[in-house]
């Protein structure tokens, strides 16, 4: 039938060896980077400078490294949030809203001077976690009780949180001294300390702790195994007595809390106040990183640093070659698509088959006695 002499045949794999998974991920990333390079060269970046932009500027000097690691903190946290939810097939598209609510919670503790100064920071952390948890929990309750699709609810709650923050910044919380729509600057004891002279702040420890906690949760807790069961088959889970609703709600609240911590880390570690730009542009990177890290907390941590590096590279490309902002998003998209596309190698064994089978040549079959003696 076919005009081509060969055709590709995909046959589903049963068991997938571990090395193949790793190789596929590495292959996908490498291919994505090649695509990025071609794309950048097409936009006028000299091929020789690419290595410079990507490696030296991002990881090779302290300013680049500083920027990369600082950005990686919030990216790790929001991506962990998405990854946790992914494990029970709950689509958390609302990390921005949860981050906003975390930032608002932390700022509220500061603004209303809740607690003595030495308890201020823990209280801010707690308020941020609760703010994020409530925001994601609402979507989980709506899903369990009303069967509302969490893709829609989490997404729309982003806007609610954003507008709530705007309302506060243009109203009650507006800075009284200069009337800018930002909250008053936090006193020193409400700011996360930085590593001498760098922008990099102690939020790193929050990100590390969150990664470690999520890793334990997924790998060693009872909760981790049961959530895997829920993700695989909700009906069977219910039949076997797994509290499906409770696991859904707990996961969503934990994930929201982690996003909320990202909000705290930004207001307390980077901005030192609530601004209008605290929680912008986190939705897409959070999903991309969670996916690149295969929803595995340690993988997410590594992927977050890599994507943060991409942002740093994008900043320098912007400065040197006047490339638009979206260049970073485009590169992220390249990586995401190639990694997703390479999944086909995990799922299928790919073979090449001749379309027209060769005419079967009669093979001389030795008589039965001869075969018997041969063996």
């Amino acid at each position: 039938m076919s005009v081509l002499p060969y055709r590709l045949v995909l046959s589903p794999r049963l068991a997938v060896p571990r090395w193949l998974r790793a190789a596929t991920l590495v292959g996908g990333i490498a291919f994505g980077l090649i695509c990025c390079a071609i794309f950048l060269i097409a936009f006028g970046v000299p091929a020789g400078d690419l290595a410079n932009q990507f490696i030296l500027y991002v990881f090779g000097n302290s300013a680049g490294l500083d920027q990369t690691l600082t950005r990686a903190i919030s990216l790790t946290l929001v991506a962990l949030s998405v990854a946790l939810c992914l494990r029970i097939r709950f689509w958390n598209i609302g990390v921005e809203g949860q981050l906003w609510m975390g930032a608002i919670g932390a700022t509220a503790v500061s603004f209303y001077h809740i607690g003595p100064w030495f308890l201020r920071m823990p209280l801010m952390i707690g308020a941020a976690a609760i703010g994020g948890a409530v925001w994601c929990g609402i979507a989980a309750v709506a899903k369990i009780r009303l069967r509302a699709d969490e893709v829609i609810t989490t997404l729309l709650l982003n806007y609610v949180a954003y507008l709530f923050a705007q309302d506060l910044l243009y109203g009650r919380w507006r800075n009284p001294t200069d009337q800018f729509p930002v909250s008053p600057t936090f006193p020193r004891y409400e700011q996360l300390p930085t590593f001498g002279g760098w922008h990099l702040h102690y939020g790193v420890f929050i990100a590390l702790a969150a990664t470690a906690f999520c890793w334990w949760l997924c790998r060693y807790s009872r909760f981790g195994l049961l959530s895997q069961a829920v993700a695989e088959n909700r009906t069977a889970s219910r039949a076997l007595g797994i509290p499906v609703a409770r696991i859904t709600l707990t996961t969503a609240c934990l994930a929201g809390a982690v996003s909320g911590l990202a909000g705290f880390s930004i207001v307390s570690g980077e901005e030192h106040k609530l601004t209008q730009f605290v929680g912008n542009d986190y939705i897409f990177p959070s999903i991309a990183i969670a996916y690149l890290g295969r929803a595995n907390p340690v993988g997410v941590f590594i992927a977050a640093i890599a994507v943060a590096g991409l942002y740093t590279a994008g900043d320098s490309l912007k400065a040197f070659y006047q490339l638009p902002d979206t260049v970073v998003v485009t590169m992220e998209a390249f990586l995401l698509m190639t990694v997703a596309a390479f999944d086909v190698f995990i799922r299928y064994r790919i073979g090449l088959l001749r379309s027209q089978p060769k005419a079967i040549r009669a093979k001389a079959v030795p008589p039965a006695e001869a075969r018997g003696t041969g063996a």
Partner: protein
Amino acid sequence: MSAAAEARRAETARPASTIAVRMAGVRKAFGERIALDGADLTVVWGEVHALLGENGAGKSSLMNILAGFYGADDGVVEVAGQPAAFAEPRAASAAGIGMIHQHFKLVGPLTVLENLRLACGPRAGWRSRDAALVAMAGMAKDLGFTIKPDARVDQLSVSEQQKVEILKVLLGGARILIMDEPTAVLAESEAAAMLQLARRLADDGRAVILITHKLRDVSATADRVTVMRAGRTVIAGAPARDVTSAELARAMVGGETDILRRGTAGPGETVALELRALSTAGAEHDVPLREISLTLHSGEILGIAGLGGNGQSELLEAIIGLRTPTHGDILLHGEPASAFPAARREHGLRFVPADRFRLGLFGSLTLAENLAVPALSGRQPERRYWVTRAWMRGRARRSISDYEIAGGTADTQARLLSGGNAQKLILAREFEGAFSVLVVHSPARGLDVRAAAAVQNRLLAAAARGVGVLMISEDLDEVLALSSRVAVLSHGRLSAAVAIEQTDRAELGRLILEGA
């Protein structure tokens, strides 16, 4: 029956000189399971030929071979006198064979006309939408259907969708129609109309093969009847009016074979599970349960016989708490059962579902993880904060050796297990710890003889330990071999349970086919 119909019946009993389909000595095995073991079927033009048999008797396998879904291992298949071995369904369609499946093969979001064009556009030679519209309108008028060509298929009723299927098959040029339980999904009045239609299509000169479980369909419509049992043809094309319902029932369930009793468990005194007038709502593709009452004692196996699709899955799901009853009560050890499946489990209820991967196992989890899930999900989990792979492996190893689960280690994904080993895995998990009520559904389905015996022995052993076992089974032999009492589930109604000594195959066969 009217005189006219009687006359027509006599006229259609013409000599079988014009044979539409001849299948002889057809064999087919799937792995170790033999589906067809020398089946015969001969259908002539102009007749409605009923094909009867229990679940798993081989009706579907035989028809799938005829319709080109797979090939036979051995035997003769002839269509209109020509040897036929179809490589794919399309080839069978081209040869004029059309199958109307029980679960319709239509594209929901498309309109009726789009479905028809998609299925038979090129074959019917339609070059435009209008040509298809004219052809459809003509055929629909001829058959007396009123279906809007622009209606979306997923917004049609079940009986309308069935009519679209029939239009699809006929417009595609089918001369031999296979109807797979066409009345199963229809209400009484619609069913009668559908049978009339089958009659009418045969009178037009086509051959209609009617797969059915209902004796009434046979007596009302069919000219001849073929009965299959265990992959063989036991009645080959007898004139339908010459065989009685009792004969058909006996042929289907095998009245002559001896009952091999393996069960000895007698009922204890205490009631383990009680259902009182339990009813459930009927949704799409579901059979509503109608006022089911039963009493299961400790230490007995109560067999629930019946053909699949009569409420079996619904009964299991209602008992384990996945399906909320509309009326009636479920009592576990004399107390009303909690609404939560988890609480029922803690109250000693275990289950083995028929569909092992929908309700029983988590395919992408390992054997060890599957075994650990219930141990971790109750109110008193065995471990809370440090669930290691080593711990899970350790407890799995014991189960794997005790239950002789082959084909995988503790770290193998459950989806890679064969049917028998998957079933042993479920048993290993469900039999862990103390339990007092066990509900099983077709526990030996798809298993080879050895695996089936192993599973059945586990059930007997459980009953001997004092567990009340409710065995819902679509295999009458299994019910007769294991149960101490038996009831029949038919159309969502349950007959009164009787002791196994006080009934026989013929009686049960009648109940299975005709209901209580």
